[in-house]
């Protein structure tokens, strides 16, 4: 193997890492309410 290979691999890893990090799934919590029907004291 050429002595340059490990450096190249290190560089590739360095450059690709942010892309991998950026590709992480985006997560979100959606909170929904509906049909509240004028309720402000839902014990009633």
């Amino acid at each position, binding site marked *: 193997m050429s002595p340059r290979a490990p450096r190249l691999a290190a560089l590739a890893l360095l450059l690709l890492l942010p892309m991998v990090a950026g590709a992480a799934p985006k997560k*979100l919590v959606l*909170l*929904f309410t*509906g*049909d509240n029907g*004028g309720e402000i*004291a839902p014990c009633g």
Partner: protein
Amino acid sequence: MPVLALDAGNALFKTLADGQDPAAKPRAELLLEQLDAQGYAAMAVGQRDLVLGVDFLKKKTKGTKLKLVSANLVDAKGQPLFPASVVTTVGGLKVGIVGVSPASADPKAPAGSSDGTAFLPEGVRGLPVAPAVTAEVKRLRQKEQVQLVVLLAAVPYVEAVKLAQGAEGVDFVVQSHDGRGVGMAQRQGVSTLVPPGERGRQVAKLEVSVDGTGPFADLSEANRARESQRMVEANIARVQERLKAEKNEDTRRSLQETLASFESRRDALARTAEAQGPATGRTYLLTYLQLGTDVASDAAVQKQVERVEPPGSAGH
């Protein structure tokens, strides 16, 4: 995790005749103030939100972060009464939120006909639902380049199902009109129909993970399968323990049969979990937060509630 709070409509009034109740207006005002204060981004305008008219809604939400949305409500001249949608970026995701209200009922239709329309106040017209939604979703996808579309559908259930089956580009349809309460998220054609709960008794919590494009997968079935798998594995361990100690041949045979049946069930559940639950892609998980007496009230909000509905009053 970043949070986006939305209301699917029909929040403000108990019935269409609520305008006669002197407590109805302060109750609706308090609800709008609290939806805004609690960080809601948008609410669809439902039939029961129009009891005190459009001007009341506009006046109470002027300058608020809470936006009232409806893609199909127009005035007598055919001009839109509310924005069709809002776009917001939360957790790095650009989300389009479209509102839709019922189409106006034909005044000649027999009372109680369930064609997905509703009677609206004078001067307010509900255009046909599907074309209004399709046009707005197309605009959001093409011009705004949103990554997720939520449709707040303050329309009868039958209409919401039709929308979910045909509204290309909509990821989730949240339906509110008939007070159907809690339920499961159901894939209907091209999108997923989500019941939001009712009467302030619960909040629907939809955990969404977006990686790439394509349809969303429901994680709940895989989770249920994994839970059952764990229970079956515990039963397998118990049967194996008994088998080690058992000397009677008949009992051993019976235990071995039971063990084989449990193992077969475990394998089937493992297959279900594997098939249903891609760890990556676009997934969702729906749960409900019950707002029972075990959830503490905010003291300041409680005071405001008691000013409108004192303890012991009919509504409290």
